[in-house]
């Protein structure tokens, strides 16, 4: 039961009769008591005559998924099974981050009829956004007192990572296709595969002339090459405490999602097999053996629920995890943070095990604010700030050098630049036949 503003106003109007007819204290008190009685009787009458909100049944229609930043419509069907006409307000109690905005809707439902309440959801956080309950407030005919009940109507919607980096995809696919059908003049490496034979044109490397074919065809033939296919790519995501840090107001983890989605999209186009693993002390998300369209949808689906865990990454378990995915040679892309030397000892200690068997790329977000601070020299404080930023950059450089010495590759870039930079590094490795 709740009161309305109208009831409060009606109660306050009692001042008029009390002043007009209350000549002395006793008469005024009598008038007051009479007014209170009238008002409360009216309120109780209103309450009795209001339609029961308990007689409402709720059905919900929700899309299962939405990409972050996009809007969907949540549909709520309310059926009044009672005998009275229900006039009131409905609150669909979505979590705030579901972006429901003003979630109170006025409804009028005649007896035995159904009405639709639709709400536009624009979630502003990744993950699973939930709604558990719907509250119905039924107004009496006088609008003085309301009946209110909360109905269980659970629903949830999965908010997927936005994948803004897909704008880089067409250009990278074009570059990937350019690798196809090249002669060995431009691309040469042990890993490249034999593609086809074609006639020699001026400029081709004479070393790629296939003499046996030339003898058969009475024309000089050269072999062409194409990048290898069906290689393994393992994307390993560090979801430990360092992934919670925000760079450019985006958690490192979300940047890593963008980068791994772009890489996975590119890799599946190139014909390689991608396995995805999100790990800190235990596996938070895993996509294995998927390809084509299913790969990306499975990846965003599993990423949607991953949040940074405030625990230290267990690097010692990483080689075992990679071995459980593949025992062949693979490109292992580790998306983590390359920071101070002390924080990176875990990574450095297990890198030799990985590089012995695999090609390893360590990708990390570089804070643009640090780069900017290192170049800003104004007053005394800014110089100290520049010195601290320079020290941080030197740390990154030192750790990067150590990683390179251990045989792995390092990609560092700002949050917007990391996904294309990682894709470029993949294309470069592929062109070099190092997969």
């Amino acid at each position, binding site marked *: 039961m709740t009161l309305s503003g109208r009831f409060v106003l009606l109660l306050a109007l009692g001042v008029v009769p009390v002043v007009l007819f209350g000549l002395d204290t006793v008469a005024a008190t009598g008038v007051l008591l009479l007014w209170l009685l009238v008002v409360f009787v009216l309120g109780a009458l209103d309450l009795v005559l209001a339609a029961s909100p308990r007689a409402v049944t709720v059905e919900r229609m929700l899309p299962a998924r939405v990409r972050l930043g996009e809007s969907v419509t949540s549909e709520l069907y309310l059926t009044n099974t009672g005998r009275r006409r229900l006039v009131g307000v409905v609150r669909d109690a979505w979590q705030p981050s579901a972006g429901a905005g003003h979630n109170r809707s006025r409804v009028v439902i005649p007896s035995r009829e159904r009405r639709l309440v639709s709400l536009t959801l624009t979630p502003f956080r990744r993950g699973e956004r939930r709604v558990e309950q719907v509250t119905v407030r039924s107004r009496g005919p006088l609008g003085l007192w309301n009946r209110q009940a909360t109905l269980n109507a659970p629903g949830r919607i999965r908010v997927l990572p936005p994948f803004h980096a897909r704008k880089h995809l067409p250009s990278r696919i074009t570059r990937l296709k350019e690798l196809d059908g090249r002669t060995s003049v431009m691309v040469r490496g042990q890993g490249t595969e034999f593609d086809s034979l074609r006639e020699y044109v001026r400029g081709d490397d004479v070393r790629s002339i296939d003499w046996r074919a030339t003898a058969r065809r009475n024309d000089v033939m050269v072999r062409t090459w194409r990048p290898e296919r069906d290689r393994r790519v393992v994307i390993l995501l560090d979801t430990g405490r360092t992934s919670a840090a925000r760079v450019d107001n985006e958690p490192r983890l979300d940047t890593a999602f963008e980068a791994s989605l772009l890489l996975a999209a590119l890799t599946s*186009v190139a014909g390689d097999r991608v396995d995805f693993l999100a790990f800190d002390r235990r596996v938070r998300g895993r996509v294995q053996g998927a390809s084509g369209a299913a790969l990306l949808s499975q990846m965003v689906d599993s990423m949607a629920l991953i949040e940074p865990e405030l625990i230290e990454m267990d690097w010692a378990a990483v080689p075992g995890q990679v071995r459980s995915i593949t025992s062949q040679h693979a490109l292992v892309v580790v998306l983590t943070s390359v920071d101070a030397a002390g924080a990176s000892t875990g990574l450095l200690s297990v890198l030799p095990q990985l590089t012995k068997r695999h090609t390893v790329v360590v990708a990390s977000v570089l804070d643009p604010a640090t780069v900017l601070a290192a170049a800003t020299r104004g007053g005394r404080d800014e110089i100290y700030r520049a*010195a601290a930023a320079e*020290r941080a950059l030197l740390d990154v450089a030192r750790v990067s050098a150590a990683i390179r010495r251990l045989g792995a590759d390092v990609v560092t870039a700002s949050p917007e630049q990391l996904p294309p930079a990682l894709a470029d590094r993949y294309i470069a490795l592929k062109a070099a036949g190092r997969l």
Partner: protein
Amino acid sequence: MSATLGSQTDAPALLSGAAVGAAGGTTVATPTLRALLGRSSFWVIAAAGILAIAIVAVLVSGGTQAAGRALAGDNVSPAGSMALVEVLRQQGVTVTLASSLAEVRAAVGTDSTVFLYDENSYLDQSQLGELGDLAAHTVVVAPDFLALQALAPTVGFGGVSESDTLTADCSVPAANRAEELTPGGDTLSIPPDAGNPLLTGCFASGTTTFSLVQVQNDSTGGIISLVPDADLFNNENIAHYGNAALALGLLGLSDSLVWYLPTLADLPRTGPPSLAELTPGWVTPVLVLLMLVAVAAAFWRAARFGPLVAENLPVTVKASETMEGRARLYARSNARLRALDALRVGAVQRLALAVGLGRLAHLDEVIGSVAHFTGRAPDEVRRVLVGAIPESDAQLMALSDALQALEHATGQAVQPGSAPAARASASVSGESSPPPAERMDP
């Protein structure tokens, strides 16, 4: 190909139509009134029980409370006088308890006794004078100066009795029956020229000090008994010595007794009429109504539209916080050389890359190379890059600016199309072009 891939990546957002929610049986989370009462019945009963116990406890303890006015006729504490009043009632005396002069006026008859004990001196002289004329017998306990002035102007205070025994030794019958009183109380003094026939003193402590003085009102003929010691008649002392006999003798002379303890109501009113008299009668009810309106408005606004919805919030940590912290540490401890070293190492590495030496090039090579490109003296370059030690913040800032200038000048010098002299020396030194963006494009 890219188009199909785009549609693949869009696919999750287009997946829709998955219906969640039951058809029909929606459960209600809000308990019904009956269920609510059933669930909270224990607490309701417990609260009611505690309330009942508290009320009973207050009622019971209220009966034995020691608080109360001294010599009040309904006070059972040691300071009260209920014992005396009850004995008088058993003897057939009608005792009326009065708390204002108006009540005394209404209760007093032609043959009444008035008992007065004005502990806080509420009565003024005229009221005391009127009281003295009202009844045939008036007993004033512990009279103050005003009372003496009004009732017996010749009687004064005699101080505390120093006598060990107080014996009646006078013509008053009640005093004679009492024979002896509790010694050590206050006394009154009668002027030594005992020629005044209207004054009688009993229980003498000295030649002029007495513990009971009777005065005859010369206009009405009424007898006024002045008892200076207030402790004689209280519950604690009434049974000692002849106190009870004196009290019964003085107060039981007539059939009706008015037991009068003045209160605030006896104070004469002065000044303008009070606020309560000036306000109209409806003001208090309107205030009550407004209070109720405020309460109702609070309920109106505070009523929650269903339960709160919980949400787990993400951790928000800025990645640059360690950098900012380190900068503040540098600044607080004035670590000029350490800060400058960080800047220098970064600058040397960038310079080494700019002039085409590796990241691991020796410092001397870098200095020589940079001096060559920029045309500056090697000593000067060395001073900026390693030599100078900043002694003050101004020097630190100057060195930082010099570092930036050196980097800028080197950058200008190694760019294609710069001064021919620099180009010539660059070609001599070997690699000249700045390394392009790291890429392995074919």
